[in-house]
Each structure stands twice: as structure tokens, then as C-alpha cells.
């Protein structure tokens, strides 16, 4: 449609509503831009700092763009920064993190989704009590639990060794870490899945039961294919949480298998002479890359999943 003026005898009363620069819109976008500035500032600072040389940092300000762009801090953070006598930067930790991440995410989500499914559709006597305890668990600071968990894992390892006859150590193995991540991810994930499955029409569940499907058949064939949005949320939350974890990573792994965050901490806290802010920032960004990419890539899916999982209180 072209905008050829057509002489209309009866012009509508009132102003034409489709104006771009209404005061409301100015305020709306103005607020959004100011807010965006606040959220973007640190990212900007990280970025420019990581591209500056040390002298520039010492005499410039944090917001000034780099005069001379250098990628050396990135190279150093990835491959050269030293901790103790190891000077291979973050690179060592990257694959370790991936190896920890994958089983932890898969197992924790598998268990939490089954929990949520059982809690919403196969309630049994006491199931709500366990759920309430679980939710309380979300409020216990992790650090408080370290000590008993360490003892628990030791005992469990010994118990398993007795049963299987081979020596099994949960402490210091990747499986110990997976168990810990599963336990601490459980409250929030279970809540999400429970809410999601509770919003699935109950009649669907009934129909499947009349069709002779049991607990697992309904879970795998009916519920699982329907739960994609909430799985996206769960995966995002877990990937972020586990990737960013420092505390459990450092306690339940060994130097060979230290995750990236432990190495980040080492790089950032290994002050040799002056703090190399540029290297620190580059290391920081490198470490944050995986969760960041996941966030940027998931976009709308995350919001949609949250809507499905969090809306029911």
C-alpha cells in the first residue's frame, strides 16, 4: 500500500495513534537504554581491559578504549598464565570442565525430572514432605554441607567397595563430583519440573494409564517429548551453575582434573608483582564464554521454558 493521500471526508477524531516519538515511547526506550548501559558496562570494561597492555591500564581509566589493541592478554590467559609451576593457563581446565559438565548435567536433570514427574503425577504418601524438605535444602549454604558431604562420600565409597568387592573411591573421582552436583541441583530443578508436569493436563496422564502405560512408559513416551521447554531451562541453569562452580570443583577433583574455574581463580589470585588486570579479564571472559554462548543462543526458549516451569507457584 502506498501512502497516496486520499481525500477522506470523515477524518477520525483524535490524534493518529501511530507516532514514533511519543513522550511515552521516549521514556520507555530511554529507560531501557539506561538500564542496558548498566548491564553492559561491566562487559565493556572486561572487553577493553583485556585488550590493553599493562602500562595503559595503570595510567588510563577503566572505560577508555584501548589505544593499542593487543591480544597478548588473551593468549596469556589461555595458554601461558602460571599457577605455581604450571604455566599453561586456562587451556588445561577447559576440557576438564567439559568432562565434568556433561555427566553432571545429564544425571542431575535426569533425576530431577523423574522427581518432578513423580511428585506431580504419582504422588504417594509423604511425597510432599520430601519435596518440602528438598525446597528447604535450597536455602542451606553449600559450604555448610561440605564437611558432612565429604564424610558421606567417603562412607558411601567404602560401602560400595564392600558390596562390589573392588575398591571404589567417590571422593576425588568425577562421580563424587557428579553426585554432589546432582544433590545441590536437585531442589530448584525438581521444583521446576514438578511445576511443569503439574501443568500438563491430568487427563493426558489418565488416558495413558487407561492405555496401559506404566510409570516409565508414561514418562518416556508421553511426558518427556512434551517437556522440551523445561528441559531447555534446566540445561541452561545447570550448565551455568556447574560450569561456574568453584567450591565443589576444587574439593572433589585433583590438579589433573581441575575445572576451568579453579584455574581462573588460580590465575586471578596468583599475583606476581602487579595484578595483571588485562590477563585476569581475558581469563574471566574465556571462562564465562560457554555459559554466555548458551544464553545468547537460547534466547526465547529460556523465557518460554521459565514461563512453563515457574509460573505455577
Amino acid at each position, binding site marked *: 500500500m502506498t501512502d497516496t493521500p486520499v481525500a477522506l471526508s470523515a477524518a477520525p477524531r483524535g490524534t493518529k495513534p501511530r507516532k514514533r516519538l511519543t513522550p511515552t515511547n521516549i521514556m520507555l526506550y530511554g529507560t531501557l537504554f539506561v538500564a542496558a548501559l548498566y548491564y553492559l558496562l561491566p562487559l565493556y570494561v572486561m572487553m577493553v581491559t583485556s585488550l590493553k597492555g599493562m602500562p595503559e591500564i595503570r595510567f588510563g581509566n577503566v572505560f577508555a578504549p584501548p589505544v593499542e589493541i593487543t591480544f597478548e592478554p588473551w593468549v596469556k590467559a589461555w595458554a601461558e598464565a602460571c*599457577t605455581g609451576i604450571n604455566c599453561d593457563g586456562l587451556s588445561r581446565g577447559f576440557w576438564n570442565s567439559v568432562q565434568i559438565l556433561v555427566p553432571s548435567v545429564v544425571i542431575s536433570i535426569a533425576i530431577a525430572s523423574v522427581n518432578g514427574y513423580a511428585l506431580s503425577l504419582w504422588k504417594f504418601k509423604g511425597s510432599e514432605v520430601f519435596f518440602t524438605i528438598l525446597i528447604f535444602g535450597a536455602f542451606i549454604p553449600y559450604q555448610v554441607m561440605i564437611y558432612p558431604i565429604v564424610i558421606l562420600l567417603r562412607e558411601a565409597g567404602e560401602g560400595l567397595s564392600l558390596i562390589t568387592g573392588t575398591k571404589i573411591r567417590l571422593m576425588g573421582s568425577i562421580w563424587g563430583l557428579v553426585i554432589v552436583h546432582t544433590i545441590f541441583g536437585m531442589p530448584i530443578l525438581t521444583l521446576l519440573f514438578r511445576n511443569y508436569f503439574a501443568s500438563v493436563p491430568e487427563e493426558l496422564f489418565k488416558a495413558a494409564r487407561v492405555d496401559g502405560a506404566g510409570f516409565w512408559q508414561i514418562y518416556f513416551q508421553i511426558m518427556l517429548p512434551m517437556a522440551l521447554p523445561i528441559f531447555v531451562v534446566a540445561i541452561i541453569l545447570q550448565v551455568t551453575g556447574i560450569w561456574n562452580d568453584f567450591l565443589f570443583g576444587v574439593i572433589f577433583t585433583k590438579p589433573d582434573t581441575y575445572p576451568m574455574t579453579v584455574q581462573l581463580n588460580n590465575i586471578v589470585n596468583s599475583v606476581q608483582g602487579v595484578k595483571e588486570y588485562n590477563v585476569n579479564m581475558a581469563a574471566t571472559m574465556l571462562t564465562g564464554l560457554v555459559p554466555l554462548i548458551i544464553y545468547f543462543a537460547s534466547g526465547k526458549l529460556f523465557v518460554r521454558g521459565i514461563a512453563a516451569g515457574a509460573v505455577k507457584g
Partner: protein
Amino acid sequence: MNLYKATTAAIAFCAAGAVSAADLEVTHWWTSGGEAAAVAEFAKAFDATGNNWVDGAIAGSGGTARPIIVSRIIGGDPMHATQLNHGRQAEELIEAGLMLDLTDVATAEGWADTVNPTSLLDSCTVDGKIYCAPVNIHSWQWIWLSHQAYADAGVDVPSNWDEFVASAPALEAAGKIPLAMGQQAWQSSGAFGVINVAVGGPDLWNKINVNKDADAAAGPEMAKVFEAAAAARAMAANSKVQDWNQATNLVITGQAGGQVMGDWAQGEFQVAGQVAGQDYTCLPGLGVNEIISTGGDAFYFPKQDDPEIEAAQKELAKLLLSPEVQVNFNLKKGSLPVRGDIDLTAANDCMKKGLEILASGNILQSGDQVLSADTSTQIEDLMVEFWNDPSYSAADAQAKYAEIIADAD
């Protein structure tokens, strides 16, 4: 799992068939420039024996590293060797039977005769058995002074604490920070200890810290110490850094006049290519009471159930105290060797001063050796608050201090 176990077992078996070589994972929190260079000496020497040093550095401080070390030992997944401050930190772990008994190594190597001062070995001894290998002597009792800063301010480099205090206004006038201080609790507490010994004298320090004499802690002599600390606080008011080596860096670059810090600071000067007596001056005991506190680091060896590993652990223990390694390590680290029988001609001015004092027996036990970790952290909490809050009066702090000493165990 089984396959994995079998494979590891096979590998271990093969390895055993060769020389008694093993990978030893060693945790420590030595990550600053000088520290890392020193650790590398250990690793080099150990690797030379055909074993393999797996470095488990945990950056941060003992506060970050210790929970990790302790929980891994308790969880049944101990590292093979670990740094800990000797003294009372490991007592319970030893009592619980989690640490390897090194008595046979110590006897064979004659540690009892070579380790000087003997108090170091005493700290490693529980019920007559030796559980740790001391590797160095660290003394808190130093102040490090920047020649450049004093030159810029146009005053002479002070030769004792009183002169240092007197020179402060001149430094401030020249836009310098008279006293560089990191804001972490252990630094506040440590600096206070140094001032305590310098101003109050070693006897007072012993009375309070060894004998837990709360009256002395509340007494007039101690009041003077607190006044001195309050004065130091004022001098450090513009020092807004966290880490100790950042503070040291202020001294190295001439932005600050001096820093009260242990002898490990020397490693930083060395890394920066500065020469003692030329670029910087060190004053033991703040130039007042020339004395050295003999704290230090030690290595503990958590018990393992693999005889191969145990052999390697003992080998490492032996190595750590061998004369050659002691020299190389301590030169890099800037600390004093634990053996009285080695030649340190390569040592610089400051180290030599320390060695002389050590030889003369002018020594003090370290806080780690006499106070429990609990009491130490209580004092740290008090000190970090005192140093950072100008409105916290010396008298109030002293009262609180006396309270802590009264409850100390």
C-alpha cells in the same frame, strides 16, 4: 570401572617394576612470583630422582587452600604431600592417624642434629614421632624500606621504627604512603605482632602468647604497643590494596616508604631485580629488637595405602631437607634454611642478617606454633577491624585483645 582399576593397577605394577618412581601430587599455596620459582626448585630436584612432581597449587592464601586440603584428607582422597604451616594446624590430623610417620627418615637423615632451631622439629613431633618436614624459616620481624621513596621525599632512609615514624610526615608531604599495608586479616595481625615484639619486647610477647597472660595483655606496656599500632594505622591510611605483594609492589616502585612484612617479601624484590642495601633496606625486628620469629612452612605426607607411593613420599621428605635443595629453595623464596650446617654465601644482605640473628639464637617462636588456629583467627578478626577502622580506639582494641588471650587455649 573394573577395567579402569585393572589398567591403573597394571600401570602401577609396571612402574614399580622400573625404578621406584611415582607421581606425587603436592598441594601448596605458593603462587606468587618468588614462591613459584622456589617451588620449581623442589619439583626439579624431585623429578631428577625419577619421580614426578604433580603440582597442585591453589592460589589465594592458606585460607582458600586449607579447607580443600583438609577435606580431601578427611574424605579419604588425600594428596600425597601438602604444605601446611607447621605448628598446631595439623595436630588433630596427626592424632587421627591420617599422616605418615617420618621418624625413620628423620633418624636416618639425622634431622635432630641438623635442623636449627630445634623448635622447628619439635613442632613436627607428636608423641615422639616426627610427622612433617620443615623446609624453611620464615620470620615476620622485618620492615622493608624503599630507597627511592625516601630519596624523593628528601629524607634519609630510617634505621629503626622510631625514625620511620618520625619520617612519615615528610613522605606524606611528598605524596607517598608512609606505610604500605595489604588489607587482609593475616597481614593486619602479622604487622601487629611485629610491632608488639619491637615496641613491647620479646618478654612481653612471650608472656602473652606463650603463657596466655591476660593481665599482661591488658597492662600498660601493651597499651604502648596498641598506641604504636594506632600510629601505624594512620600512616597506612592511604594504602588501599588487598594482597601483600601489591603492598610490596608499592614499596618496590617507590610509592610507599616501607612495609612491615615477613621475609617472603624479599622474593618480590628479587624478582623485581632490586638489590638489598642499594634499592631497598631491610630492618629485622624493625631495627629495635633484632630478633627472628621462627615460624615457617612444613610439608606433611598424608597416609596412603600404596607402598610405592609411601616410598616416594619418604624420598621427597628426605629431599626437602637435603642441603642442596635447601639452599636453592631458600634463595629463591627469600626465607632462611632450616639447616644450620649449610653454606649460604650466595645469600643477599638481608638473608645474611637473618642468618646471623638465627646463629646468635635470638629467636622467638612463631604465632602459629604457640596459638591455636582458633585464637589466631580471633586475633586476626580483631586486628583487621582495628587497622581498617580509624574510629576503633587503641584502648577498646586492647580490652578485646585481653579478652581473647584470656580465653585462648
